[in-house]
């Protein structure tokens, strides 16, 4: 397990309670409650879908489909799992289905990057520190990372996105994907090993 701070997933927390309340209101027909849920989960799901597709247009289309499906299925959501896990499961499944249909036809498009990255020690380390590519530009780094991600299998890319980029815990990933924690760890291990090869010059 890495030393990064794992983000809260919203289950069993104040965020989870808030979600439950919003879901109940949305189930009773309050569309504003559903809009609030959309606003809350759009940044997280955008990150998930974008890092799995590496294309902004596809991400926008998929997010529409994901939230539309969630809205249609909301009455069937019984609250056995958290809304967070439920909406993530829908997003992952729909994105994997989309990727299977899309095949190898990939057009990479880069997202805007928050200016805060300039102060991140890891970014400084990669671009100016001990890295042999000390003059690498931000866009070059983005492009290399996206290309490396797209070389992974869809299952491996999913766990890397959820764990390394989104900061979810193994247990949450196993619930979302419907696999054991051991499978999640195994997929992560092999994905990291592959990425080590693809991004060799960055991590030396």
């Amino acid at each position, binding site marked *: 397990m*890495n*030393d*990064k701070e794992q983000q809260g997933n919203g289950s069993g927390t104040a965020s989870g309670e808030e979600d439950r309340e919003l879901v109940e209101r949305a189930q009773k027909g309050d*569309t504003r409650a559903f*809009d609030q849920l*959309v*606003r809350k989960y*759009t*940044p997280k799901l*955008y*990150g998930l879908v*974008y*890092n799995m597709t590496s294309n*902004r247009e596809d*991400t*926008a289309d998929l*997010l*529409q489909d994901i*939230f*539309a499906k969630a*809205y*249609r299925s909301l009455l069937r959501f019984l609250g056995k799992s958290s809304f967070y896990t439920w909406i993530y499961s829908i997003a992952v499944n729909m994105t994997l289905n989309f990727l299977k249909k899309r095949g190898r036809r990939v057009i990479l498009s880069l*997202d*805007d*990057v*928050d200016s*805060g*990255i300039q102060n*991140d020690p*890891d*970014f400084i380390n*990669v671009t100016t520190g001990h890295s042999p590519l000390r003059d690498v530009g931000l866009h070059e*780094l*983005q492009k290399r*990372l996206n290309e490396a991600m797209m070389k992974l299998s869809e299952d491996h890319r999913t766990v*890397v996105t959820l*764990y*390394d*980029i*989104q*900061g979810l815990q193994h247990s949450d990933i196993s619930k979302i994907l419907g696999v054991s924690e051991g499978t999640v760890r195994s997929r992560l*291990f092999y994905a*990291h*090993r592959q*990425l*080590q090869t693809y*991004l060799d010059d*960055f*991590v030396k």
Partner: protein
Amino acid sequence: MTEPDDNQISRLLALKRYERMPEGFEDQLIHQLHLRQRTELMSQSVRSMVWERLQEYWDRLTGPRLALAVAGMAVLAVVSVRLIQISLRPGAEPIIASKLSDVPLPPGFEMIPPDLTNASANFGSTLPPDESLKLSPLLLSKHFEGSYGDELRDSFNTEFVGPPVSRRFEVGPFIKFAEDEERGSAPAK
């Protein structure tokens, strides 16, 4: 693979968290979702309207006849079940077959119940002598006298014997017999 390498990869990938979705993406997404929900709602209502109309049309077309048929079948089923229940009840009399005594007799007739005393002893025995006399005109022995046994006999003139019943309905002699009658001649023998 060593743990530090794993951490390095994770830290490198974590830099992707700085990637942001385009400005105003959320608002645009919600707007698009509302449009989509409205379109879906419209298409649903059109579908439900068409379905409602179809159902109404079908009801109008088949409703009364179907209802009548169903009602008839239901009544038939209830009556059948009731009849079966009654007939299966122990000691129940048959419903359909009426008693012989219930059948009305023509005026002047009287129903004489059979004498069943010593019936088993009389079973298979011959008829009393007076009864056999009444049947004498039909006895088989008449065949040996040159007739068929089914001739019509005049009750007053015992010598008169009509044509046998079996022959009277034959086409040829009957027509001839009728022609003879019209001419006033005696019937042909």
